[in-house]
């Protein structure tokens, strides 16, 4: 006896055979238990599959959706009004965190810049006196001064890199199937750009070429994010991620940030 193929038996179940072929298979099934079992199994699968119903999602899914909606709402509210208004909603914990974070970064940068501006001014005004002191005292005070300045810069830059790394890592690991709201990251990148510029200029003045080079690369990525849209499509997000990946910026930030943190305190 020649058995029909499983594909033909499947077509029989689907009623996709010609009338003549259908009758031929039906006749075969009357006398062939083996093929009849295949057909019976396939019919069961089709019937069971069509009877599969809805599934109740776990409760935490709705909680997560609510949380993400709240974050998104607060981020968009903040990007519109946080700079104009000091009044915040009691629910704006996430945005408050970002805002405080950004202000901390900006304030730290200004303090460091003020410190160095003062130092450079002082250094310039006291240049002759310093030279005289160095000549008289073997330059010990001048070396210590430079070491302290360098240390202050590196601590501040280490902190700045850690903040920047958070933004880059969030973007590098973000996923979306449609559109993604990155307004919070965009806002933070915008705030970090200003700090970054100050640190880069200071590092250049200090002759810290490695740090200045890294900050230069970092600034380009931060500017790109800060000037980009608040909501990105999957393609736009991929572009940002590819740019971050191509520059190896997360790795560099991690390495230099780690080196800075591991340096002994003078």
């Amino acid at each position, binding site marked *: 006896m020649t058995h029909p193929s499983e594909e033909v038996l499947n077509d029989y179940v689907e009623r996709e055979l010609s009338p003549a072929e259908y009758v031929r298979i039906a006749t075969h099934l009357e006398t062939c238990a083996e093929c009849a079992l295949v057909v019976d199994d396939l019919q069961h699968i*089709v019937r069971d599959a*069509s009877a*599969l119903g809805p599934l109740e*999602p776990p409760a935490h899914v709705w909680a997560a959706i609510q949380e993400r909606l709240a974050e998104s709402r607060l981020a968009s509210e903040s990007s519109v009004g946080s700079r104009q208004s000091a009044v915040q909603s009691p629910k704006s914990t996430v945005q408050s965190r970002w805002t405080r974070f950004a202000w901390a970064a900006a304030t730290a940068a200004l303090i460091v810049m003020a410190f160095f501006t003062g130092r450079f001014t002082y250094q310039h005004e006291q240049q002759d006196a310093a030279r005289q002191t160095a000549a008289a005292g073997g330059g010990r005070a001048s070396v210590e001064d430079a070491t302290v300045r360098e240390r202050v810069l590196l601590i501040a830059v280490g902190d700045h890199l850690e903040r920047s790394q958070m933004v880059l890592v969030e973007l590098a690991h973000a996923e979306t199937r449609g559109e993604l709201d990155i307004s919070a990251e965009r806002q933070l990148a915008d705030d970090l750009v200003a700090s970054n510029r100050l640190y880069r200029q200071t590092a250049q003045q200090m002759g810290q070429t490695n740090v200045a080079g890294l900050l230069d690369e970092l600034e380009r990525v931060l500017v790109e994010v800060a000037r980009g849209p608040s909501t990105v499509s999957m393609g736009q997000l991929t572009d940002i991620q590819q740019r971050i990946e191509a520059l190896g910026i997360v790795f560099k930030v991690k390495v230099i940030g780690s080196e800075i943190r591991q340096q002994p305190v003078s």
Partner: protein
Amino acid sequence: MSRPDAELVARCRAGDSDAFELLYREHSPRLFALARRMTGSPQESEDLLQEIFLQVHRKLDSYRGEAALGTWLYRLAIRQCLDFLRSRQGKMRSASRPLEDDSTLLPPTRETHGARIDIERAVARLPEGCRVAFVLHDVEGLEHKQIGEMLGVSESTSKSQVFKARIKLRAMLR
């Protein structure tokens, strides 16, 4: 648009979070089942359901009421599921998931008992290509032509994938 749908959508658009929760409660079981069966993964289906409803929240303004709300949501969910699967294929993540991973087992629900639990488990263990075609055809009741258009394959490829899925399921369920 039916009157209850219109009212619910209007409340959601006005920022009524209770209305959005109502919409979620009403439609999430069907969309969650779709996501679970399309991905074959509990964790990914939960993430996907989140994405679907965040997308719904963002796009509700574009709902014109030409189709029933449930149909609009269902279409949006299918698109999200397919985008997700394409993205996952790109990242080759599915290749690393073990075939016999017990994490794919479903928790018991009122709807899943007896033979249905077996077929749920078995569907989750199908290779992705034939699982998607099987779910869309045999579970969701879509035509091969529609499936071919959605997946960017021919109608005959869709038929062939559904056939493969049935044969594999038969082997698993025997």
